């Protein structure tokens, strides 16, 4: 498994713990809104990932992106990391 995905999984578990939420098993087809994190949880997750991965692909993107599944979410970061490296 790649580093970005592992980091995201770690951070999701961490945020869920801090917010006393139960995290669903993180499969690629898991619908994000059913992962156990609420809006505030995702906001915190995106901020933490910006610190650890050095990129906030949601703010950086020209068009707003709304990933539906965990797999989509990871892809947004993988693509974000690629374009950050290319820049």
């Amino acid at each position, binding site marked *: 498994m790649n580093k970005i995905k592992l980091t995201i999984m770690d951070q999701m578990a961490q945020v869920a713990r801090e917010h006393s939420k139960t995290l669903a098993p993180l499969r690629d087809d898991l619908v994000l809104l059913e992962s156990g994190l609420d809006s505030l949880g995702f906001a915190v997750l*995106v901020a933490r990932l910006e610190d650890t991965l050095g990129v906030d692909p949601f703010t950086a993107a020209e068009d707003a992106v*709304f990933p539906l599944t965990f797999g989509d979410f990871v892809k947004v970061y993988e693509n974000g990391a690629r374009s950050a490296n290319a820049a």
Partner: protein
Amino acid sequence: MAHVARTLRDCISHAAPARFFWDRSAQVSVNHLAHGTSLGNRLAELAGRSVVLATSSQLTAALALVELDGVARRLTILPPDTATDHLGELIARAEADAVVIDDGTPDRPAFALPVRVACAPAIVPAEKRALPRLATEWLLLTSGTSGVPKMVAHSHASLTAPIGAGRRLDGLVVWGTFYDIRRYGGLQIFLRAVLGGASLVLSSADEPVAEHLARLARYGVTHLSGTPSHWRRALMSPAISGIAPRYVRLSGEIADQAILDSLRAAFPEANVGHAYASTEAGVAFEVGDGMAGFPASFLDHDRDGVEMKVVDGSLRIRSSRTASRYVGAQQPELLDGDGFVDTGDMVELRGGRYVFAGRKGGIINIGGLKVHPEEIEAVINRHPQVRMSLVRPKKSPVTGALVIADVVLRTECSRPDAQTQVKDDILALCRAALPRHKVPVAISVVPSLDVAATGKLSRRHG
């Protein structure tokens, strides 16, 4: 008492086309309210009283509001997240002598009032009884205050003024709201549904987004309203594809271009509009051109009875839609000498449009919940190793903003490992003392913080 032109119940007709209020567990035929009651035939006991609306569900709140407008002398609407600690003070300020509850209302000592009436999501025929018609004073709670919320006085007239008579829409209208109708933004949607002869889909406490969206789809929602944060969350649900509203409305937070464009793309057939409103200032304007901010020309002249001006960067509003005052002793003035409400929302002129640039006094809006940085700083400053702290917003693509903190430590613990420990301690302190959205998402140790000539921390809009 002033002459009362119309009450909410006057907007209900037995002969009108069928319409409903729905929540997760019940469906109520609204037309039955014309000659029926959700209050077990006890409305007369509430006549002329100062009534606190403390139902647990939005549906019972909606039914009680229709019945109580024009009957209660004063109507205090408690939002679902009202802190138990504040109930006594709020009820005292409202001089309440009656409470409306439902079967989910928790038992609180503060609700031990002379009259206590239960509301149920079912309508029974009402005994015919003529009650005097009053101009009910509506008290709404603000979300922006640290400590006990402010109580803001509105009237049927001020609350319904933004809903023009010409706005009655053709065809079947089904309103939906991601907001709770016990706050100003959601109440506007409830009133639009009642006045416009429409049905209304309400959410239930803790209802998952996907289920709420599925119900909105099932009932054929045509008009749907929420904050930008509500909409961002909805756009992350596959269930969003089930709805096709004709009108998509945003308010309560800054609507940025990204969310407006995303909604335009998701609902190409819909009118996407963002409204500017606050509990104190009422609805000031609606923008329908799909662009963030509002045209500078809005400030040039009276628009539908609303006048606006910018003073020291902050938007001020005067209209018949604003609240009249804060209720209670030793409350600040709500209107300035000229009758304008200072919204505290800072605007900047960019290319012929005003765009919102944050809050005066540094209030931070996290997904529609307003946060005073000082409240969080006070908690952080309790830590013995903290000399001073500054809480400021960090932009978030999910909730608009989050809070982060800069702290200055006492010199003796500037070693990196000690710093990590102190940061963890501060976060633990915040988690114990504050709701989740007020806990800083990151803490930075800084050598110093700017203090302005006034002796106050410099707060710049980030």
